[in-house]
């Protein structure tokens, strides 16, 4: 069908490209106070971009006929800005696994069983556990008027829980992958949940001061996401503000070719073949992502990070963000911390990630003394700034853990200001 769309647009335009994505998603949710739900949604979305009369037009659709879509894009081009689309030519696709047969055959009953198996493992007294499982399968197709015609199948299976215990905000965990979760991945969710339930005293007050902080991989992933956005915002092009150097132990990569991960893909929505992009090497920004339109504006080739949704302008989007594993064995993180604080889950720094004065609070942080966890803080607030924290990384773990489309090892930071209150 996408070829037919290009055939329809071709005679009426100087250049055109399109993306079509279809998804079929089944979700199961259950838990206390929630009416158990099994839902199934199907969606097919199109995005067409044209250059007509030297002007740019675009249109999206989830239900319209192909002729209508072309008409709308051409109508947009009549009042669109002058633009010249430099479209890619066909290239061989890199080899990356984006789907699995085992995920594709999962039905509502299988997902309900999967969710129930997790709930059974972590349920118990003095806690509420809500679980969810989801399977998405579909296909992405891209084409352009220079001959690109490519596509890939995709599946994604997620399994997660929300744990609520007295005196703390809920604890969210999930795993998501092209394949159904492995026993090892389910076991890790169970272990992380049990760690959070570890019977230790709750500590109300921590005097504000400088501490050694160990970030478990899930907490480190929140910082990595913030760093990733900063790199995108502050280093996107020659005229942008440079980032100060971070810890030389930090290396950040965008990796669409990581096998079987959430954001893996062989080609982007602009029809550009994907590749790994080094973003940070030894603490210094060395690269950034582009799509066709931002690349055009910066005078650079696209890096294969174009993303297009039906009713929005094209945008640059990450694939998988990876903090490269380091050389430290942080399997026993409390032992490495010695005396300090272990943070299991950290909220994202959000839109204030560039602020020099930032405070991020979490109720899932623990006091560590003599290499042992001896208490959980009712609330711990890390203060300073994302860039300051990332400049104080002293150890990077040697084992990656994926949290959705972000992979990070554990990190140890020295001299971080922390306390109980903001």
């Amino acid at each position, binding site marked *: 069908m996408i070829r037919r769309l290009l055939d329809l647009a071709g005679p009426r335009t100087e250049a055109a490209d399109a993306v079509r994505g279809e998804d079929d998603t089944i979700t*199961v949710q*259950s838990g206390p*106070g*929630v*009416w*158990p*739900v*099994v*839902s*199934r*949604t*199907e*969606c*097919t979305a199109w995005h067409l971009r044209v250059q007509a009369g030297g002007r*740019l*037009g*675009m*249109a*999206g*659709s*989830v*239900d*319209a006929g192909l002729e209508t879509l072309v008409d*709308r894009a051409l*109508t*947009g*081009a009549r*009042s*669109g*800005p002058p633009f010249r689309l430099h479209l890619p030519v066909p290239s061989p696709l890199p080899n990356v696994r984006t789907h699995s047969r085992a995920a594709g055959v999962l039905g*509502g*009953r299988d997902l*309900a069983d999967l*969710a*129930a198996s997790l709930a059974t493992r972590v349920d118990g007294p003095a806690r509420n556990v*809500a679980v969810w499982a989801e399977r998405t399968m579909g296909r992405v197709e891209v084409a352009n008027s220079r001959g690109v015609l490519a596509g890939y199948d995709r599946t994604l299976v997620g399994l997660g829980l*929300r744990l609520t215990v007295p005196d703390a*905000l*809920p604890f969210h965990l999930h795993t998501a992958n092209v394949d159904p979760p492995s026993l090892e991945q389910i076991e890790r969710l169970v272990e992380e949940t049990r760690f959070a339930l570890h019977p230790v005293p709750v500590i109300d007050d921590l005097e504000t001061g400088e501490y050694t902080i160990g970030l478990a991989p899930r907490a480190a992933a929140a910082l990595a996401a913030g760093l990733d956005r900063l790199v995108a915002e502050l280093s996107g092009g020659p005229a942008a503000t440079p980032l100060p150097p971070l810890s030389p132990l930090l290396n950040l990569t965008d990796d669409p070719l990581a096998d079987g991960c959430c954001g893996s893909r062989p080609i982007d929505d602009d029809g550009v073949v994907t590749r790994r992009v080094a973003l940070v090497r030894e603490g210094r920004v060395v690269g950034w992502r582009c799509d066709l339109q931002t690349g055009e504006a910066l005078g650079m080739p696209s890096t294969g990070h174009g993303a297009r949704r*039906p*009713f*929005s*302008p094209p945008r640059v989007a990450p694939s998988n963000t990876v903090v490269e594993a380091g050389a430290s064995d942080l399997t026993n993180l409390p032992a490495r911390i010695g005396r300090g604080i272990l943070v299991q889950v950290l*909220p994202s720094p*959000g*839109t*204030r990630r560039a*602020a020099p*004065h*930032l*405070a*991020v*609070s*979490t*109720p899932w942080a623990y006091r560590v003394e003599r290499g042992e966890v001896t208490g959980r803080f009712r*609330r*711990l*607030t890390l*203060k300073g700034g994302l860039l300051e924290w990332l400049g104080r990384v002293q150890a990077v773990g040697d084992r990656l853990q994926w949290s959705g489309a972000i992979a990070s090892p554990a990190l140890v930071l020295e001299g971080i200001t922390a306390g109980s209150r*903001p």
Partner: protein
Amino acid sequence: MRETLLALAGRSPAGFTDIRYHRRRGIRLERHGREAGTPIPTEDSGGLVRCTSPGAGWGIASFRDPGEAGAAVALAHELSLLAPAAAAGQLTEVPARDGEFPCPAQRDPAQVSMAAKEDLLALAAAALHDADRRIVASRLVYQDLLEDTWLVTSEGTSLAESRPRMELSALAIAEEEGTRERALDSIAVAGAWFDLEEWIGRIGHLAEKAVLLLRAVPVRPGRVPVVLDPLAAGLLAHRCAGHLCHGDRDEDQGPAPVGLRVGPPLLTIGDDGTVPGLHGTMAFDHEGISPRNTALIQNGVVVAHLHTRVSADLAGVAPTGNARGSPLAAPRARMTNTYVARGKDSLDELLRDIPLGLYLAEPVSVRMSGGEAGLGAGYARVIRNGALAEPVRGAVLAGDPLALFGLVDRVGNDFRWNRDASRCRRGGGEAVPVSTGAPHLRLVEAHVGEPA
């Protein structure tokens, strides 16, 4: 359409079935500085069927074309039988409703020509850039939509509404000697084009604010008396009270228990989906219930939560008309137009006895982190000896969401509904349009500075 869907719901094998179908069409225009962007038309449709039966959970299935609704009913019923538990509750009984709420032709955004919409943006861009040479960039986004919604249930409810929306948001960036500051504003109206024109007529103030902020000094963190403008007070009510009063219990925090005192007797906060012309107003919610005015915090005490039919039954109360979903998502309890009720004091009286404090206005964000709220002001001024003084930047009101209301000691008498283009994205779900309303609000010794 309604008759066809009603017949399908009536024939459903499930104990209860509802079918909701949406059709939306509109346009999005963008302008960066004086350069026009590419117009992007929006036209989509989609529906959702929900089924449940005694002893079963919910089954939910989507469809794109009304012709596929019958198959979606069968699938939803089948899925409901797979739902993993059976003891969640009942649907509150409500009488069947029948009604149609069309959009007056003069309020249909499609009646305004594309050229007029483009001219409006061009005019706005020129006004921003001509206001001051230090305005180096701007971004304007115009979006309109006419959304038709049909809702039928197997109990006989049959409703249709056609609702127009027009939104305009503007960003002005000022630069001088290497310093950059920005100012943001937006407006949402229910198809009243002349309101947008009037707003554009005053857009020069946005440029002035961005320029004013160039000279603003960073705020010093600390505890000071704070006065919130109606926009900031309304957003605080939405995020820190409304989000803790969702009755369907899957929020990270809350719901705050009924009977809990959170503020002084002069504080009343509620949600009212009936106010004409506001962004969050609707003729019926996505379970067919009429929205109403629900007091959430009355005289400082939590008195009620916002409910769907499911959560209302679990709580043993009546639904409040707050069930809202998206074309492909089931309804949950969501706010509509959230407000702080009018108090007794003028703004002068709020400011008069403050020797040193902060006036926070035009919030640009409110975020939660580890249970703490952080409300970032787009514009702030020092209060010195009872009067507004120099501007400051980087002011963020921080604290435990409910505890912030405990700091309120005066409520202004200058209540107004805010018309900014706000959206609420509860728990990462699809954003729904909402509004807020409030008078000025005074807090004693609030923490301002770093965000929580």
